[in-house]
């Protein structure tokens, strides 16, 4: 073993590419080694690299397991336990089960990292350019590039991950598959289970109560799918584990209805002035209503859909904190949903807000006076900062309005009582010469000439220079970070970085300088770059001399 890792599972008699070997499942990776080749490991994959696993269909002679990697490669293992088919199956299933548990953990990690990196690159074009210059052109590896970005990344990452919503059709997506012999198979994934728990807290509760002491995980879900609860359209016969859930749901539903809709615009019951008239007996009964028996199966289905949608909606909402609610109201939504924030308030509406809504309902935006021109949408990376203003870096830096007031008072006073200190004033001739020197063309303003460089150099060259600076700065940052060199790893890196710098000089700087020359532009543009590289070079040589002297 090259690294000491916990071996979670070891299965022998596993063939890979027709070679007999042993499969190891370890903390972070999966490995297979051929029996004959001794020490050397044949295959090793980090879990993070594995996209999914596939197993050979039941009834096939060969019991196999296939790993699909993110790269698209596959890797087959053939379970070949000499004790026969059942044992092979058992081996395979053991591996499968364990992988099933392990993979999602790493998967989310990988995905998150990748997503994060992707996001960073997309959001920051400069970084993307740098990435192209350094990584794509092979100057440094992607890993090196990102290790240094780690801190910035961390600080950029939004606090608290965003919750994934629940798909409305998640129950329907659990498609039962018939296995050909009067059985039905449901495929459950961790996501689906999470969705079920999120949407139906009653099931979660039952799960917590019964698993694992009363039932096994598998048994629980089997019962769930068999239950009346899942197939709400079937007629309920007898009690099962979930009859309580159904009752609770019913109660919930009742409560929601009892709570009543506070919004008088939506409350159908108080919409009409029918308290007197539509009383029992007055008026014609409408032909459509009344007749059907109250709790037919169809109505149960309809109520279930309503409840389901309600719960899905709730599941997504619960997680949001009230502050975020406000935030989403204030900043979210652009364009034509101008009255959106008004509608979404399901809270009790007191008269003032009711009045506001009435006003809103009757106003014609296009008839009224020209409203404020719509500003470009505000896109914020850190909404917190926007809402709270710049945070105080140093305590006490801030001045209260009182201080400011006092200060202005003071200034006013001083100005009011100002008297020129005539003896110390410069003579006018001297003042004139100083002004002349400070005006354009004067001795002190010669640096100003360089501004014309901007016009002198074409835009594409400027851009190139810009990216060169960025790339070099990045490389130098890597380089200087190695000092003081304390570990062998750093030592190695310093040497590598110097190599990289050299390569940079030859592959990037040289062509650029050539280009400048060919366009008859002053090459001193790159002087500063060269100087920086030389500095690094010098540092390296002193360091290597020192090191050479030490051992």
């Amino acid at each position, binding site marked *: 073993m090259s690294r000491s890792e916990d071996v979670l599972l070891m299965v022998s008699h596993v063939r890979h590419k027709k070679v007999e070997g042993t499969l190891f499942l370890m903390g972070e990776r999966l490995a297979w080694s051929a029996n004959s080749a001794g020490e050397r490991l044949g295959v090793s994959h980090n879990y993070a690299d594995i996209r999914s696993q596939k197993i050979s269909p039941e009834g096939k002679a060969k019991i196999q397991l296939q790993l699909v990697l993110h790269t698209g490669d596959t890797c087959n293992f053939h379970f070949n336990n000499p004790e026969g088919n059942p044992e092979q199956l058992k081996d395979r299933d053991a591996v499968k089960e364990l992988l099933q548990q392990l993979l999602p953990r790493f998967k989310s990690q990988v995905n998150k990292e990748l997503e994060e990196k992707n996001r960073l690159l997309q959001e920051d074009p400069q970084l993307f350019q740098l990435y192209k210059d350094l990584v794509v052109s092979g100057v440094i590896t992607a890993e090196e590039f990102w290790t240094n970005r780690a801190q910035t990344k961390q600080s950029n990452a939004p606090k608290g991950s965003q919750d994934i919503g629940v798909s409305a059709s998640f129950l329907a997506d659990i498609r039962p598959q018939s296995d050909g012999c009067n059985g039905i198979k449901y495929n459950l994934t961790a996501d689906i289970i999470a969705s079920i728990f999120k949407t139906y807290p009653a099931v979660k509760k039952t799960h917590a109560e019964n698993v694992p002491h009363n039932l096994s995980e598998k048994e629980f879900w089997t019962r769930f799918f068999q239950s009346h609860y899942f197939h709400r359209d079937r007629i309920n016969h007898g009690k099962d584990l979930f009859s309580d859930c159904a009752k609770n749901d019913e109660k919930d539903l009742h409560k929601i209805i009892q709570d009543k809709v506070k919004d008088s615009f*939506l409350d159908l019951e108080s919409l009409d002035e029918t308290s007197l008239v539509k009383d029992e007996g*007055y008026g014609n009964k409408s*032909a459509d209503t009344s007749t059907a028996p109250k709790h037919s*199966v169809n109505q149960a289905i309809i109520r279930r859909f309503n409840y389901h*949608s309600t719960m899905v*909606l709730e599941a997504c909402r619960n997680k949001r904190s009230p502050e975020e609610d406000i935030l989403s109201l204030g900043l979210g939504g652009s364009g034509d949903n101008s*009255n959106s924030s008004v509608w979404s308030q399901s809270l009790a509406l007191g008269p003032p807000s009711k009045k506001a809504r009435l006003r809103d309902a009757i106003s014609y935006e296009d*008839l009224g006076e020209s409203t404020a021109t719509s500003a470009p949408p505000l896109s914020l990376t850190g909404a917190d900062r926007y809402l709270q203003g710049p945070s105080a870096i140093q305590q006490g830096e801030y001045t209260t309005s009182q201080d400011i007031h006092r200060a202005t008072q003071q200034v006013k006073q001083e100005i009011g009582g100002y008297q020129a200190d005539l003896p110390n004033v410069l003579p006018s001739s001297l003042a004139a010469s100083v002004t002349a020197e400070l005006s354009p063309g004067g001795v002190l303003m010669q640096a100003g000439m360089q501004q014309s460089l901007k016009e002198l150099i074409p835009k594409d060259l400027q851009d190139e220079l810009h990216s060169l600076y960025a790339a070099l700065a990045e490389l130098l940052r890597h380089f200087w970070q190695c000092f003081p060199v304390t570990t062998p790893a750093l030592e190695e890196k310093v040497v590598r970085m110097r190599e990289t710098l050299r390569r940079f000089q030859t592959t990037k700087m040289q062509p650029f300088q050539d280009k400048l020359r060919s366009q008859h532009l002053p090459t001193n543009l790159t002087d500063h770059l060269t100087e920086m590289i030389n500095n690094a070079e010098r540092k390296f040589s002193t360091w290597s001399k020192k090191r050479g002297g030490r051992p």
Partner: protein
Amino acid sequence: MKINIDGLLVLFPYDYIYPEQYSYMVELKRSLDAKGHCVLEMPSGTGKTVSLLSLIVAYLKTSPKDVCKLIYCSRTVPEIEKVLEELRKLMEYYEKETGEPPNLIGLALSSRKNLCIHPEASALQFGKEVDGRCHQMTASFVRSRHERDPDVPVCDFYERFDALGRETLLPPGIYNLDDMKDVGREKGYCPYFMARYAITYANIVVYSYHYLLDPKIADLVSKELAKNSVVVFDEAHNIDNVCIDSMSVTINRRMLDRCQTNVEALTRTVQRLKDTDQQRLRQEYSRLVEGLREANVARETDVVLSNPVLPDEVLQEAVPGNIRTAEHFVGFMKRFLEYLKSRLRIQHVVQETPASFLKDLKEKVCLDRKPLRFCSERLNSLIRTLEIADLTDFSPLILLANFATLVSTYMKGFTLIMEPFDDRTPTISNPILNFSCMDASIAIKPVFDRFQSVVITSGTLSPLDMYPKILDFRPVNMASFTMTLARPCICPMIVGRGNDQVTMTSKFESREDVAIIRNYGNLLVDMSAVVPDGIVAFFTSYSYMESTVAAWYEQGIIENVQRNKLLFIETQSAAETSVALQKYQEACENGRGAILLSVARGKVSEGIDFEHHLGRAVVMFGIPYVYTQSRILKARLEYLRDQFQIRENDFLTFDAMRHAAQCVGRVLRGKTDYGVMVFADKRFARSDKRGKLPKWIQEYLSDGMCNLTTDEAVQVSKKFLRQMAQPFRREDQLGLSLLTLEQLQTEEMKKRAQQTAHQAFMT
């Protein structure tokens, strides 16, 4: 802006105006000048209310002799509140322009439930309970008892109002429901009675249809309104049904059983009173002998429902002798009740006229027509005499007495239908007696006769000539306005076939067809994939929706819908539906998008708007014909044919199309709004259906869009929605569908307005 409408200076509270608003005001002005009734159709979301209010307020102010009051009737409570807010806005504008607030009072009247501020009564959940509780505390005998015994609870707010409130009038201003409550709290007056009193002197009254159309309530509330008022029925597309409902009665077995207990309770009370306080009964009797129609002068608080017949039908003579004494009257009611019970013990359907019913009544139990006509008033008098506080308990008996009065008063335009069971559940015995009004004009006739101008207006009144027919009045003016649009913001289309070319229809014979149900489902799935935010879909009836949803569930269509959007479904319980609606809006707000399955003629289709993203598409699954097997409907159709020469099919189609238009109109609430309207039934393409859609929808329904397949429909919607989602600025509209004052005054525009007005007149 200040506009000159035909010589009348109208202050319009906005800087811009839609051309159709201008035309609308011109037409309205014409009708008011002619002192006649009119029918005006203008698409929803084009500012109908504000145009109406601006013009009529200007009229009120300039010629108060011609028009002294505006009575604005709307349908729902939120609607009423909206009107008041528009009015308030207008008044603010007046104040800004003229420097002083206009000397007008505008107020809303609603039921006790919405106005009560009594801590106990207002906490009750149902309107009926609030009414009952109020009656218990404010009835005149309760109050006189309170004088003797201060422990008897009365309502302090009413006491205060009764003592002081009538002397001082409300200061000028606009009083919405909440404002009334605030004033009530501040002064300690009862807002409900204050409002009821205030409508006699207010300039603008906004309340529900029923306060004018239902004789039981109108008699109490709207008795003293001046003749030269303008009455506006907004959202009036359903007005005939309101009229009919207000005159109809339905009695079932359970109701009769409760009547039985009422009668028994009444007998006991009379007996007790006889033993203890015979004086009172004798007093009532002698008063009735003296020829007073009612034994006591009814105070406003004593009666909850007045005589159910129209004022001109109420007999102005003394109560006949055989029901004058309390005992005799209770016996009379008992006999009537027994008779009805025996009639409901039937095995087959009976349909008869009121005349034959009365004849049978006379033969079987010897009850005359005349005393029957007094039943309702006699019962009210008795209840007062007996000092029964809890009126809610006696509602079945009051209903019975109302029925007796109605059936003996009206010989024409009504029918009696007794059904032993519902046709769809023939095994369950559920006898019902329907006393049904077939003629909408009966209830509204006094309104037309009494007030000088009645304006019937809505977004969907097509075809216009139907309303004067069924309401039996002669309008001086009828006009339908289209919507001028700078961009085609509605996209109506008729989807007649599924992708498999199978015809889509909700025709009764084929609606259970699996292929049709599946095609409907696929249409919904496909639309849900391309339409952002909210989609509303309407079915023709609850039962059809239930069976279709169940079929979709089995076919796996629901799953596919759920993949795209959350699904909410209207149920027959209003409370459940309210919750579903709220969640639907929430889902649209937070970006998930949702679908609401609803029913035409249901509560949602009548009262809820889905503006902007709450409804980007509406799908109409089938033509919402009324349940044609209903005997009440059949009787009405027959009546309409005989009396008004309206063919059955014409009326059915008219009724179906106005509901369809109502449903699809829910999604478009203004010119900045936009939405797809899918009519998913082949039959919509036929000219008799298509021609009955409102003009503003017809205009945008080109021939090429009349028989699309699902795929084509999805493509069209996709393109439409993409186009519509582009920013829409005022400049795009200006001069076309939005005018400034200068633009309005140009000759060309004036000509155009005249032209549209003229066209409208021709229709």
